[in-house]
């Protein structure tokens, strides 16, 4: 049997590249301008709210799933969801343009955007 090789210096290349890519993506987000509006997409409707429209919104998704979106202090947060993994809730508060909370089982996407026309389109990543 050939002796197993356990490590080679070139193994570091994919590790470093992956780490670099993981760091590069959030830097993109940090450089984004502050969000001014929140765009909500559900299986049945799509609408945009200004982040000054404070309050809680009940969103209905696929399979009878409900997601609650709360707009407060110029930020949008998914505060509760019926789905099993609740990743959209764990995403936390959205403040920078291009950030998003996605509930895949319910088919609901919440993104915050800078409506200022001069701002870069941070959503098209």
């Amino acid at each position, binding site marked *: 049997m*050939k002796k197993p090789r356990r490590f*080679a210096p070139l193994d570091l290349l994919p590790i470093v590249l992956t780490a670099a890519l993981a760091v590069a993506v959030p830097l993109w987000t940090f450089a984004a301008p502050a969000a001014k509006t929140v765009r909500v997409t559900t299986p049945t409707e799509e609408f945009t709210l200004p982040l000054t429209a404070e309050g809680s919104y009940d969103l209905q998704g696929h399979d009878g799933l409900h997601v609650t979106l709360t707009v407060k202090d110029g930020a949008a947060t998914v505060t509760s969801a019926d789905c099993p993994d609740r990743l959209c809730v764990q995403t936390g508060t959205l403040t920078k343009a291009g950030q998003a909370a*996605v509930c895949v089982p319910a088919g609901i*996407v919440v993104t915050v955007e800078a409506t200022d026309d001069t701002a870069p389109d941070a959503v098209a990543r």
Partner: protein
Amino acid sequence: MKQRSSVLLITTVGLFAAMAAALSFLESLLPSTGLPGVRLGLANIAVTAALWLLGAGGGAAVALVKVLFVLVTRGGMAAILSLAGTTAAFFTMWCLKRVYDKGTMTMIGVSVASAAAHTIGQLSVAAWLLSAAVGGYAPIMLLVCIPTGILTGCLLNELLPRLTDIYTRMIQKG
């Protein structure tokens, strides 16, 4: 002789496909990390071993069974994402196999690269089908690829020479 070796190929593909399904199931028993798409990727060990031992055709057959297993157990959307990730990972491994064969990279590098390719493939299709917003999950999913890739890479570093040894002996016996 030719017929016997194709029987050996078919049975080995079946064996690895069963292993991929069993490892997927085993992994589903582990408690969820609460993070999207963060999994060990144990089933990929079977796909990788098949690609290394049986070549592109055998490896692709095992990968296809793995995707079908996802379709049956987790539904259409999960299967499409799995297909996207598996295709990207498979192509990456197929390219890196030459580097491995030259001895300049071990399975640690191959596994991390294929795990990252899996993530990128999966997220690209999710971004296309669902929303570009899933890109927000990219950093955490990519970071997790490093430890999980190293882990499966270490396992494969030990496994592959042994499996190759067994398989070559079986071919020689005819």
